[in-house]
């Protein structure tokens, strides 16, 4: 492993550190702790074997075409256990991945996108600034998914949210129920959810969010949203007579 800490301590006059400004620096031990969580994930061994550094993942990666982003560097940093670079990537790079898994093209069977999945989970679980920032725009979607089990709902279509969608947007939003009924399929007549969700499904979903800790994952990122959802779920489960 190439630990930069050893370099800093022992050869600090020589080693040239890349400029990693733009987020809070944390002690080396904290970086090690975060990486241990990544490495300790049960999936990690299946996601990283050894890296040829051949770049085929970068060639296949749509994000790499548009951002300063490289799945190869993510795999390499993990393979080299370079905790400084891994921390930098958790604050920056990993949010530029679209999680399309084109990088599974890897001849060694690595899964750089999967490593990023784990790194994102660790970033979220530990309330990293980048995770908060990345998720700001998603709080409505998180609320929708966790409260209703569906993602984008028709009532999210508002002209203030989509000013570039043209003048019809306002009319559709104002007469949403009517427009929805114009569609033939029965399930499409919902307005506040993407489709009809059965009561039993919703209760099961709430149990899953609570029992797996999925809801807790957003506690550090958006505490307001977390408490709204928690209250909603506990209330509903109480009505069903379910004690956790």
């Amino acid at each position, binding site marked *: *492993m*190439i630990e930069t800490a050893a*370099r800093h301590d*022992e*050869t600090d006059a*020589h080693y040239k550190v*890349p400029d990693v400004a733009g987020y809070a620096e944390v002690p080396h031990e904290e970086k090690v702790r975060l990486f241990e969580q990544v490495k300790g994930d049960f999936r990690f061994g299946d996601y990283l074997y*050894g890296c040829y550094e051949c770049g085929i993942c970068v060639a296949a990666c749509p994000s790499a075409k548009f951002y300063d982003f490289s799945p190869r560097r993510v795999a*390499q940093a993990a393979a080299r256990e370079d905790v400084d670079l891994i921390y930098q990537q958790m604050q920056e790079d990993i949010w530029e991945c679209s999680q399309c898994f084109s990088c599974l093209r890897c001849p060694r069977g690595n899964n750089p996108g999967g490593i990023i999945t784990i790194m994102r989970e660790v970033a979220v679980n530990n309330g990293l600034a980048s995770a908060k920032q990345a998720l700001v725009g998603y709080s409505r979607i998180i609320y929708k998914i966790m409260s209703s089990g569906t993602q984008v709902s028709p009532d999210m279509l508002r002209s203030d949210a989509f000013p570039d969608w043209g003048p019809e947007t306002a009319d559709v939003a104002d007469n949403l129920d009517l427009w929805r009924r114009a569609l033939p399929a029965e399930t499409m007549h919902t307005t506040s959810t993407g489709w009809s969700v059965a009561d039993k499904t919703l209760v099961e979903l709430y149990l899953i969010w609570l029992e797996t800790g999925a809801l807790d994952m957003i506690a550090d990122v958006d505490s307001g949203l977390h408490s709204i959802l928690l209250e909603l779920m506990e209330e509903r489960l109480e009505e069903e007579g379910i004690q956790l």
Partner: protein
Amino acid sequence: MSSDKVAVIGGGPGGLRAAQCVAEIGGEVVLVEQRDFLGGTPVAENYAGLTPRGEPAQPQIRAMIDTVTAHRLVEVRLGTELAGLAGEPGAFTLTLRGTQTAEAQTVECGAIIIATGFGHFDPGRSTQMYGYFEFPDVITQADLEMMLSEHKVLCPSDGQPPERVCFIQCVGSRDRQIGNEYCSKVCCGVASKEAIEVRQLLPDSKVFIFYIDMRMYGYWENEIYWPAQEQHHVQYVKGLITEVLPKGDRLLVRGEDTTMGRPMELLMDLVVLSVGMEPSPGTREVARLLGVKQNKYGFIDAVGAPLDPVSTDREGIFVCGAAFGPADLEDTVSSAAGAAIRAVGYLRSRPVTAAN
């Protein structure tokens, strides 16, 4: 006088296999070896494990030696070197002399197989800034192999086990400055094999291999390279070390981590130079005495390569193993068997002359 005997010059793995094969198809052999023992470089340098699978080297080489020395058609002359050649193809007369006694001997033979092998590049030479003769903890693959054969890897400077070990690849290979433009073929595999062995002996150590590109052809890929990286966590970093410097009681290696796009300076306890192959002094001398063509690097020119890799430019004289260029053991014994059949085939297909 025409002769049905084949002279094999050099008693390493190539010469042993050539002698064995000639004898097994009924040919008479005289095996000439400069050293006082058979087995060549693997025995002289006390190889620990054979690349790629790491089986103990000495018993396997010993078995080859025993097969040859026990064969009734093989005569072995140890401590003997070539002094001259007379006669013509099919009826050569070799002049030999004892390395101790300088006593001249002659041997009649119809064909000759050169199996004089390679020598290691001298890492103290010219442009090398690795301090091989300056720092005790800068060693070669062969030095490490000696340690591995005793199951002990210790820094020569203080006798302590190293925490950080690195291999520097292509030392004396693929280098126009040095004049050795060729790849030495085996060093990537040997470095990886040795790296695995170091990690097994010293589980807390960190082992790096700095390389230009890893040449792990065929099954070496999955038999050495992948296990080294995946099971033994050897760190492969693409980028060569430019120099080794003293830093406190450790060694600082300077290079570029090319795929990460950043310079690197790392501290090491033990630096292993993956030195390449050159023609052995014996190969150069035998080529000169037999008058066979050498290539610009001094290896014997296999003029019919690639489909005839064992013929030299002189009729009746064949070559095998690392005498004609860098070769691993598989290449060596394969070409040795090829040289044997070509030599015997040559003798048996000669036109019958009045002298017979």
